[in-house]
């Protein structure tokens, strides 16, 4: 069992999806155990695949780009002219992604046993989780851009179904619709980009396209345009500016889903895509700059919105958008290793934070921070693990987030420019502030809604176990950057020596830099503590401090309103005009008008048929004279 069998990973879960989706009503416990069992099998096989990858890695040549493991021809027109191969590709990026997806998916599936207990459509929930994980694994092992697109839409579908899981709530239905259409706009660009790549390179195979690009097969302008289209897909899926609007609304879905799909896995698909295509992006630096500045704007903007959001899940959603922005900044600077490293650590601590918030919501049935407070006494495990996750997010040494964020900041200073570094560092401070605010308002101070507080209790063990495991990962996941740790895990080195485009980078610990980063994170936490230390009045004061600014942030820079206005006025307006054109011009004038004019002429002409002999005789006489005149003229 090795890399050739990597296709089994999604296949097992796809099978579980089909069985549970169709027959969950007949299965004990609605088939949740079947999905979890399938996930365990996937983890075992995934482990074997990674082991195989390691042996391959050790003996002989060092081949960072892995091996084209398996291939199945799906479509072939004209003997190789237009070929879609179902091919897989395992390299270090794939290995990182498989690890992240499997661990988080398993944690979420186990956690959901408690969280979703007693829900109607419980079986359907697990079926869609299996579908999602299958599609996500297909996405990360695919060696062909069209198969990537295939899986890309598959995860989008699962996301749509899970955001709309509580579809009886109109808000959930609207959020699902918004997510699907917004990401679909990005996907239009993605598909155009794929086809444009094919148009010149004649293949959808990722490695062949990269090879073609490195040989200089594409024209400079052509490739720039193409890669920007491709990047649109990443912008939509990873909720980057200006298509970030769907992610906060996506929090309508069940909380474990938010942890899996909207924090740890699906939303990083865009980062994965750009990392995967980085050798091509390297050919066109303008496109890379677009990636950089998109990420930078998003990181800063989302962090400011996170400062004022009152819904615990939405704060985390803004935080996710912001952290994804960090990853895109790293990619824009050409550092796949920093981006993938942050992706790796972020997955664990953000999943932890989401599952922690789920534990709070489960206990209090409230998710607005105004109604929470003081919960650390009621939910000690949740509070402790949540604080660990928050410190990791804020970037406190030695937690996971510190190392990866440090790597990105380091890259931005070395590869980028000072302004980029300054914006990122400021955003890191903002991150610490809103994280502190969230922790304080939720777990400290006086309870503000006594009904919710009295009702609260620690979650069952099946939910706290995943929290504990993830909190351990949130502490240690960052250590994979060290060479000895990587070697101990069986790899040839730390994560940055594994994941790269051109040359492996050895991690250097820069004491002064780390000190600066830690101090700025502590500074942020200090501001947060000073401002919100458990007092509702202080939260009020924050609001009145700069009401216009507060309104701007709370309304998310009015971008959602702007989009809604565009849809209502422009799109539906144009549709109304065209529908009216179809009714009035095409149907009423064109078709009915034609028919009516025939009947009108028929009506008029029938009066010629008078039935009086003299009239007919007159007509004949006129005719004869006219014909005679014509005959004379011509002769």
């Amino acid at each position, binding site marked *: 069992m090795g890399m050739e069998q990597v296709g089994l990973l999604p296949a097992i879960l796809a099978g579980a999806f089909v069985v549970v989706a169709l027959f969950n009503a007949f299965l004990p416990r609605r088939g949740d155990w079947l999905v979890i069992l399938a996930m365990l099998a996937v983890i075992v096989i995934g482990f074997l695949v990674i082991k195989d990858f390691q042996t391959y890695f050790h003996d002989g040549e060092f081949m960072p780009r892995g091996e084209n493991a398996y291939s199945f021809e799906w479509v072939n027109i004209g003997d190789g002219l237009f070929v879609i191969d179902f091919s897989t590709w395992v390299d270090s990026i794939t290995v990182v992604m498989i690890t992240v997806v499997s661990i988080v998916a398993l944690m979420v599936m186990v956690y959901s046993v408690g969280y979703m207990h007693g829900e109607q459509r419980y079986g359907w929930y697990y079926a869609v989780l299996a579908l999602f994980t299958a599609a996500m694994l297909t996405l990360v092992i695919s060696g062909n851009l069209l198969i990537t697109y295939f899986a890309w839409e598959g995860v989008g579908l699962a996301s749509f179904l899970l955001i709309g899981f509580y579809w009886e709530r109109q808000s959930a239905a609207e959020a699902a619709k918004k997510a699907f259409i917004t990401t679909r706009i990005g996907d239009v660009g993605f598909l155009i980009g794929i086809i444009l790549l094919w148009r010149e390179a004649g293949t959808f195979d990722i490695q062949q396209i990269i090879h073609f690009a490195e040989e200089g097969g594409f024209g400079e302008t052509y490739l720039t345009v193409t890669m920007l289209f491709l990047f649109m897909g990443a912008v939509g899926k990873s909720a980057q500016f200006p298509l970030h609007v769907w992610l906060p609304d996506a929090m309508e879905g069940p909380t474990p889903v938010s942890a899996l799909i909207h924090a740890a896995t699906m939303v990083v698909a865009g980062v994965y895509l750009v990392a995967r295509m980085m050798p091509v992006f390297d050919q066109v630096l303008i496109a890379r700059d677009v990636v950089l500045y998109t990420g930078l704007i998003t990181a800063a903007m989302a962090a400011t919105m996170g400062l004022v959001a009152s819904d615990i899940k939405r704060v985390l959603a803004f935080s996710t958008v912001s952290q994804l922005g960090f990853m895109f900044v790293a990619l824009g600077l050409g550092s796949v290793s920093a981006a993938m490293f942050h992706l790796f650590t972020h997955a664990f601590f953000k999943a932890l934070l989401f599952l922690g918030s789920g534990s709070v919501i489960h206990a209090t049935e409230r998710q607005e921070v105004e109604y929470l407070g003081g919960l650390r006494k009621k939910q000690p495990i949740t509070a402790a693990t949540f604080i660990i996750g928050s410190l990791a997010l804020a970037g406190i040494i030695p937690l996971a987030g510190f190392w990866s964020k440090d790597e990105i900041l380091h890259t931005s200073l070395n590869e980028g420019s000072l302004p980029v570094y300054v914006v990122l560092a400021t955003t890191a401070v903002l991150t610490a502030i809103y994280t502190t605010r969230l922790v304080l308002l939720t777990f400290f101070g006086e309870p503000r809604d006594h009904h919710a507080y009295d009702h609260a209790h620690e979650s069952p063990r099946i939910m706290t176990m995943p929290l504990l495991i993830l909190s351990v990962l949130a502490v240690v996941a960052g250590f994979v950057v060290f060479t000895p740790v990587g070697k101990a895990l069986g790899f040839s080195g730390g994560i940055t020596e594994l994941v790269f485009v051109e040359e492996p980078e050895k991690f250097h610990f820069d004491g002064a830099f780390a000190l600066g980063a830690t101090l700025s994170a502590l500074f942020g936490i200090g501001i947060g503590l000073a401002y919100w230390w458990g007092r509702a009045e202080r939260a009020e004061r924050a609001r009145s401090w700069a009401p216009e600014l507060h309104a701007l942030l709370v309304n998310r820079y009015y971008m959602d309103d702007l989009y809604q206005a565009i849809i209502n006025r422009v799109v539906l307006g144009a549709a109304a005009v065209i529908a009216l054109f179809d009714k009035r011009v*095409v149907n009423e004038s064109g078709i009915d008008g034609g028919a009516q004019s025939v009947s009108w002429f028929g009506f008029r002409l029938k009066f010629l048929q008078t039935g009086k002999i003299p009239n007919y005789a007159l007509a004949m006489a006129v005719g004869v004279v006219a014909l005679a005149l014509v005959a004379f003229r011509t002769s």
Partner: protein
Amino acid sequence: MSSNDGYLLLALFLIPLGTAVLLMFVPSRERGAIIALTGAASFVLFVLSVYLFSRFDYEGAQFQGVKAWTWMENIGFLGEKGIQLKVGLDGIAAPMVLLTGIITMAGTWVSWKIQHRTKDFFILLYVLVAGVYGTFVMLDLFFFFLLYETAVLPMYLLIAVWGSTRKEYGAMKLMMMLVAASILIFTGIFAIFSEAGLASFDLTRLFGAHYDPTMQKIFFPMIAIGCGTLGGMFPFHAWSPDGHAAAPTAVSMLHAGVLMKLGAFGIIRLGFQILPEGAAFWAPGLITVGITAALYGAISALRQTDLKLMSGFSSVSHMGYVFMGLGTLNVVGMSGAVLQMFAHGVMTALFFLLIGGLYDQSHNRDIPNFSGMAKQMPIWSIFFIIGGMASLGLPGLSGFVAELHIFVGTFRAYPIVGGLAVLTAAITATYLLRMFSQAFFGEMNPRWSGLKEITWTERAGATVLVLSILALGLWPSPWVDRISTTLAHTIPGVSL
């Protein structure tokens, strides 16, 4: 495929005709007998269609299973082999035969609940089916046109007698437009006949004849508009939304599912295969018409509130893709067009089946009147969402395979049009998801608490259609191989 399979091709046309004749002798009160007879006939047709599709040798580009019986020769203007009953199958007709088999069976099942003059309904329906099958397999221009008209004419009665909402208007409009269009086809056919100078209607011989390029340029648009009207080609689509809105369920299914494909099929058979130079000259026109229709239909659908009208405009949009694919003049794009004919056929039949299942109970199709239907009719909703996902081009379902080929083909020829075509898919997603979020989700509207889940026959029909959608979506090569080989070898001037 051996030449003896030609008898099966003939059977495709004789079985429905025989069923119609037999039905005339069944007393109308014997509903059981009517159901048994139509059930058996549609099942045999389905099995035959699947068999012929699978037996078709996908590496052969020529007609397979060819059989001919001379009907008239050496009289009047007819020379040797003037008019023959000649059947044969190529890689374009094969998927169409399969499509007809699938939709006829599903359409028959859902029509069993018709109470009003059931027997007469099925007689007309099977005459229509005979015409459709016949047109796909006939290799003689005379019978081609005869059966083409046979497929179209029963529509008038089927809509006017068994229809709903403005049925007389819809039936009349459809019939007038299609008959007017037939005049163009008729003219074109005689121009081809006389220009070829063979004194024969044999299609295989007509393919090889020489036609003056100027003549081709004049008559190709006549054929394209004539057949295109049946295919719902913009701006001659006006009959389609009204006709669909008025037609009973099975007729909508067959009409949108199969008859509209007959139009596009006619353009390939008469236009591209006989008049390739004319087609090449007018290809940019087809592209223009196609992309206009795709955008126009999709944007119009955004504003429709009647489910059937929305589906009708959606059909105009999706058939626009077909004309666009044909206009690319390369094998990938044109294969996409034929794939889209199949894909659109099954998904639109599914839509109409489901809309019928709702309308028969609620007598209402206005989207804003519905809300939270997923609660009341979950199975119905799931089928509808699968159809919608196929329609908006979700990978894994039929629509994506077809659209991908069309997009790729268009990008090779006209990148900007290709970009607009991909954008259209996003608009499709918008109107479908708006409809889902309005009608299926949210609080259930108590007004509809009396509605029942769709019947078992409807579920069975929908299942067959969904399985077809999945089959093409997950394993497209049986379709793609057959279609692309034929297109690459039988149309001169088509590039790979």
